[in-house]
């Protein structure tokens, strides 16, 4: 399929705008960031934003989807058929860590976001839970982790990570929560769910 120079350029501008928007959302928050802030960060006119995204809502959804596809790709790269649950959790944190500011803002503001944005987050969690489920089922069968309802296994992990992320200013001021606490939280979680209390 031949893609014209113009289409290519348009796609690249769009990609760049998503990148700028993600950074603005991370710094100012998802609700507080205005499209004018994104335009000025990208050094384009305000109208340019709306050539690429029909509404602000759609722009926000596309940024969330971009974060989701990055995380999904990262997990697919790092995980193979026989890796351990601990390795899957590490891959999850690595994916989050690459856009930590944005993700922290996203989960802190979820309740007040438009429906499309909230649904996009559920879909991101769905992709992650898919990877965790595959390995957790195997490890439950093997008796290395405790048998428990899968939604609680997943939500206990998410709850722990999200609590630290949504309180970044307390747990890791001016720093990354994932790099500062990620390993410790993973060890603690594994210890909680391991059949023999871990090793």
């Amino acid at each position, binding site marked *: 399929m031949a893609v014209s120079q113009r289409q290519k350029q348009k796609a690249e501008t769009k990609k760049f705008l998503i990148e700028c928007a993600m950074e603005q959302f991370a710094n100012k928050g998802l609700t507080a960031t205005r499209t004018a802030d994104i335009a000025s960060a990208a050094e384009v006119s305000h109208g340019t934003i709306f050539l690429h995204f029909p509404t602000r809502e759609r722009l926000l959804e596309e940024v969330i*989807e971009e974060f989701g*596809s990055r995380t*999904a*790709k990262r997990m*697919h*790269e790092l995980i193979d*058929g026989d890796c351990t649950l601990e390795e899957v959790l590490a891959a999850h944190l690595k994916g989050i860590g690459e856009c930590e500011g944005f993700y922290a803002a996203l989960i802190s503001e979820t309740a007040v976001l438009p*429906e*499309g944005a*909230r*649904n*996009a987050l*559920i*879909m991101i*969690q*769905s*992709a992650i*839970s*898919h990877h*965790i*489920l595959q390995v957790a089922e195997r490890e439950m069968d093997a008796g290395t982790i405790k048998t428990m*309802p*899968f*939604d*609680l296994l*997943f*939500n206990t992990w998410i709850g722990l990570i999200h609590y630290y992320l949504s309180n970044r200013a307390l747990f890791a001021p001016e720093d990354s929560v994932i790099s500062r606490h990620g390993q410790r939280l993973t060890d603690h979680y594994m210890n909680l769910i391991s059949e023999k209390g871990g090793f």
Partner: protein
Amino acid sequence: MKICIACGMPMKAKEDFAMGDESKDYCKYCARPDGTMQNYDEKLEGMTEFIVKTQGIDQEAARNAARGMMEKLPAWQN
């Protein structure tokens, strides 16, 4: 990397594809036992159940999220 047209999953390994056939545009989770692609209602039901099972979300809220996500996938544009 190819992305499943019906659920959006990245398909990396041969086994990720329906019937292990890399020329297919949909993944093994979107295939029926005979290898054909599930229809809209089957996929919506499957996705909803998966969200309920893995995230513990209310059935209706999960169906709503699944519907919203399917709206954006190439297989369900019409």
